[in-house]
């Protein structure tokens, strides 16, 4: 029994399986969608989901929804490309939480200890939108096709500034290892050293996970559900959950490279790394909260407006943030 516990607490099992991997990602998925509905409802003077476990304000609504997705019949239309229609959602969901394997849960507690972990994470992040486009093409539906094309336009919009703003922090800390980047923020958090990159990255989280005001690919009032129009049952649950998982990964990354990771936790509490992991998780939750809070405030941008924001504003700002990092390094660094 103790052997099993020891095995699970090994970082190369714990990180993909428990935190920040599968188990936590799944619980966050259940919690964050409920929170999104509750927050949007509260701002709009409603109650939101309430009657599933009323004393806790409908807290297990998403479990009820999950059961519904599991037991609903997944309808596979006659004219779709069956292979892509079935496998693209699975790969999309898997790739969406795959980047968690390089995230450190505490000082020295990593599954893959690499000097290039930030690059690995950014590389893995670019894989999932391809499958959104593939399943949109395979659905053989005009709404899906339009949604997939919008997703494609947005990928060209957000990836360059996303990488530039993340790499500007690498320039600032002088390393590409996420653990070392957190250690470099021991005294001052990255958000105070390079606020420009922090703002750009936060906006790009909204674009890349299609949250309001950039919920353009899925635009329910225009193109039904965008790339996911033809999906039902558990497949719909997977494709809908994928963007929330991506939000989860990017929020944890934001907490690690901008919000100081497990600092300001004093060093004698950092080992064993449980408190450090909780610290990172709470900071990630704050970022997720901000991202889903936008649903209650903003309407949706048009696709051309979003691309214009990406290329005219965010790319120059991301390049500027690299120069800001260089300036900080020139003035003395971290």
């Amino acid at each position, binding site marked *: 029994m103790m052997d099993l516990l020891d095995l699970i607490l090994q970082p190369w099992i714990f990180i993909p399986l428990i935190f920040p991997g599968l188990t936590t990602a799944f619980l966050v998925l259940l919690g964050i969608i409920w929170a999104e509905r509750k927050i949007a409802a509260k701002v709009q003077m409603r109650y939101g989901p309430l009657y599933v476990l009323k004393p806790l304000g409908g807290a297990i609504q998403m479990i009820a929804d999950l059961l519904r997705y599991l037991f609903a019949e997944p309808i596979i239309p006659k004219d779709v490309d069956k292979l892509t229609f079935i496998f693209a959602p699975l790969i999309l969901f898997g790739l969406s939480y795959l980047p968690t394997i390089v995230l450190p849960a505490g000082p020295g507690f990593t599954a893959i200890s690499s000097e290039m972990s930030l690059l690995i994470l950014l590389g893995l992040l670019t894989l999932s939108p391809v499958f959104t486009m593939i399943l949109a093409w395979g659905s053989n539906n005009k709404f899906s096709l339009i949604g997939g094309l919008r997703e494609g336009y947005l990928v060209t919009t957000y990836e360059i500034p996303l990488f530039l703003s993340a790499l500007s922090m690498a320039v600032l800390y002088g390393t590409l290892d996420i653990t070392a980047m957190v250690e470099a923020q021991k005294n001052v958090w990255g958000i105070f050293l390079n606020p420009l990159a922090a703002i750009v990255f936060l906006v790009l989280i909204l674009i890349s996970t299609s949250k309001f005001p950039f919920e353009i690919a899925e635009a329910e009032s225009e193109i039904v559900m965008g790339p996911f129009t033809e999906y039902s049952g558990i497949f719909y649950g997977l494709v809908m959950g994928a963007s929330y998982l991506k939000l989860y990964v990017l929020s944890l990354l934001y907490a690690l490279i901008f919000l100081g990771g497990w600092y300001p936790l004093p060093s004698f509490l950092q080992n064993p790394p449980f408190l450090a992991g909780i610290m990172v998780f709470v900071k990630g939750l704050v970022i997720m909260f901000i991202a889903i*809070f936008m649903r*209650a405030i903003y309407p949706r941008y048009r696709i051309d407006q979003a691309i214009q924001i990406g290329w005219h504003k965010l790319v120059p700002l991301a390049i500027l943030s690299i120069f800001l990092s260089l300036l900080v390094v020139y003035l003395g660094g971290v």
Partner: protein
Amino acid sequence: MAVERVFDHLRAIATGAKYLFLKPRLTLMYPDEVEDLPRGYRGMITYNHETCISCSLCAMVCPADAIKMYLPKEVPEGEKRPKRYPGINYTRCIFCGFCVSICPTFSLQHSTIHDVSFYTFEEQIFRPEEFAKGPPKPQYDKEPVKVRVIPDEERGLRYERV
């Protein structure tokens, strides 16, 4: 110009945050709370068979053809020209109240009942015999609290127990 836009965004977020933490909620918790309806509310229609003179003005005036005149199901023996009486089809009724206004003997009246559901299409057609029994009563699990709606400058709407 650009700075103003940044402030606009911040103001929008601040407004959202204000509503997130303030407590105005306009939801009427329907099955537990029921609105106390005002006089003159145009709900489902009650029909008094005793005072009806079978004039068919209601069927004539009905703009949605919801009210029609029906022969009784069992014609009494020896009656050569049985009278027709009004029945209502709630799938067609638009609750305009013309029939109530035009009825010369006040046999048709509005009730305050409006929250009734039916399983089938046919159940919503009330022949004169069922029409005379009155609209079906809404079924609640427990007795609902009656509340009155009061417009409020700050909160939008308030609910006050009657």
